């Protein structure tokens, strides 16, 4: 093989690589463009939803709208007072049930349980519970409480919503307690403090913001649930009367309003949607920003 021939091969190889390389660059660019298009495609709906809800909801908002019960159907009078009140009552009650259960279960899983059969089973069932469709949880509320007591009630709604919220709180609590550094616990042991005190006063306090974030996210999640409420609290156009009676809730009211054929009802629906979205998104944004901030300070300290 003489020198000229070898040069020829190198040239050929070079040409070949160049051609291939151009194709690879084009594919790379296409993939990037596809990814950007995906991001834009996902953000358009959010923009549109927020825009429409604010645009259509703002016209319905007034003080009367927020506090008074609904007027006669199609009249366009009244407001969604009972729905707001009902949402606060049911969600409040549900979080009162779910918070202690969820946080204690989370503490158990992270601090006391280890990796035996029972804790693994609890973790597994807990994640199954997060995956259950919410309407099935509504059926649970219906069968266990509504059928037994014989009436649609606040209790049934609160129980169903707490079943949705508990697994969220459990998971977040366990995760946050796990990232508390072991040295803190050991420092407690070195001072001869009992395990219960260490858990409550040291571990839980350190992980406080994370646990609170979990609770907040759980509340925001259940505030927007509709399906389980259909079969537990039923909905009414009156204000709250007793814990054993039916009550109204915002998502439920939106659903009912949207299925009425009147313009005024639709505008009320948008108004209710605006109130709901302000509640839920406001809570979410605040909590996430807080967690973000806390996360950074914690990391800086450690």
């Amino acid at each position, binding site marked *: 093989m003489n020198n000229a021939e070898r040069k020829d091969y190198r040239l050929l190889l070079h040409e070949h690589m160049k051609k291939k390389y151009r194709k690879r660059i084009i594919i790379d660019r296409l993939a990037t463009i596809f990814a*950007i298009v995906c991001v834009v*495609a*996902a953000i358009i709906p959010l923009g549109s939803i927020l825009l429409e809800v604010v645009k259509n909801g703002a016209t319905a908002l007034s003080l009367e709208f927020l506090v008074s019960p609904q007027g006669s159907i199609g009249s366009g009078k009244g407001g969604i007072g009972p729905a707001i009140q009902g949402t606060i009552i049911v969600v409040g009650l549900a979080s009162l049930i779910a918070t202690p259960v969820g946080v204690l279960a989370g503490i158990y899983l992270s601090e006391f349980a280890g990796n035996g059969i029972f804790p693994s089973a609890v973790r597994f069932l807990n994640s199954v519970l997060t995956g259950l469709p919410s309407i*099935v949880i509504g059926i649970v509320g219906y*069968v266990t409480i509504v059928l037994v007591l014989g009436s649609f009630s606040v209790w049934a709604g609160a129980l169903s919503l707490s079943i949705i919220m508990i697994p969220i709180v459990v998971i977040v609590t366990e995760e946050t307690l796990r990232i508390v550094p072991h040295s803190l616990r050991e420092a407690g042991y070195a001072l001869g403090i009992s395990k219960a005190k260490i858990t409550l006063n040291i571990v839980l306090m350190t992980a406080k913001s994370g646990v609170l974030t979990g609770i907040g996210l759980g509340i925001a999640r259940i505030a927007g649930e509709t399906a389980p409420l259909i079969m537990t609290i039923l909905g009414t156009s009156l204000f709250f009367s007793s814990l054993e009676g039916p009550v109204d809730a915002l998502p439920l009211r939106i*659903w009912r309003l*949207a299925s009425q054929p009147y313009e005024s009802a639709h505008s009320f629906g948008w108004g209710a*949607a605006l109130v*709901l979205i302000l509640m*839920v998104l406001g809570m979410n944004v605040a909590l996430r920003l807080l967690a973000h901030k806390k996360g950074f300070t914690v990391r800086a300290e450690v």
Partner: protein
Amino acid sequence: MVSLVAFSVFRGSIEIFSYEGVIGFLTGTDWNAVEGRESFGALPYIVGTLASSAIAMVIGVPISLGIATFVSEMSPPRFAAPISFVIELLAAVPSIIYGLWALFVFRFWIRDLIEMPLYNAFHGSIPIFAKYPFGLDLFTAGIVLAIMIIPIISSICREVMRVVPNSQREAAYSLGATRWEAVRIAVFPYAKAGILGAAILGLGRAVGETILVTMIIGNVIGIAAIPTTLFSQSQTLSSLIANEFNEASSDLHLSALIGLGTVLVGDKKK
């Protein structure tokens, strides 16, 4: 707690299963709640559920992967945090608000921008586009479900892709890979299991979603709920429960609806 769920769903549905038989309930297509002529079959709603979820997955998974790839691999860090924040917000919007938006806004976009052109272009020569579109149908429901599950899938995929060790990427780059090739040969295989898990979680969400679907799927019952075209009205298990629960007068009818819930749980376990 799970056993409580299983127990109550089972107890509620035992009546319908003994009336229709398990097989009869799963494969029947009639749905008649008139007293004396009761007949309940769940097959059309099972098909409707699977079809709408399938559409949602086909649209939702590639887009979610695209978003996750962009955020974790391609975008400058300046954009990554705000984008993932916005996507997470999208996950927090209650489904009833998606439903309201889809019913009053999005359905017209879909009808005018996608369904009508498709219908006009083929004039019924392709069977799946052969129904005059109305906006409230399987296709719209599938797309809105996709919009709803995208944030969930993409934020999990992002997390999974973030934990892929940098050495993997560096190895690919050192072999001369372009950025896309690095993602394809180093990141995707490593994150495969996680991405699959995210997709399954999204599927679970889509299958169980109730209120959103009830508002836009058109709500037909009986044999008509088996979709013959992409633009047919249909019905899913959960939307049927939501629609009829308040009107259910007889115990048998109630029990049939709860039986649908049982099927729904069974579906998801698979």
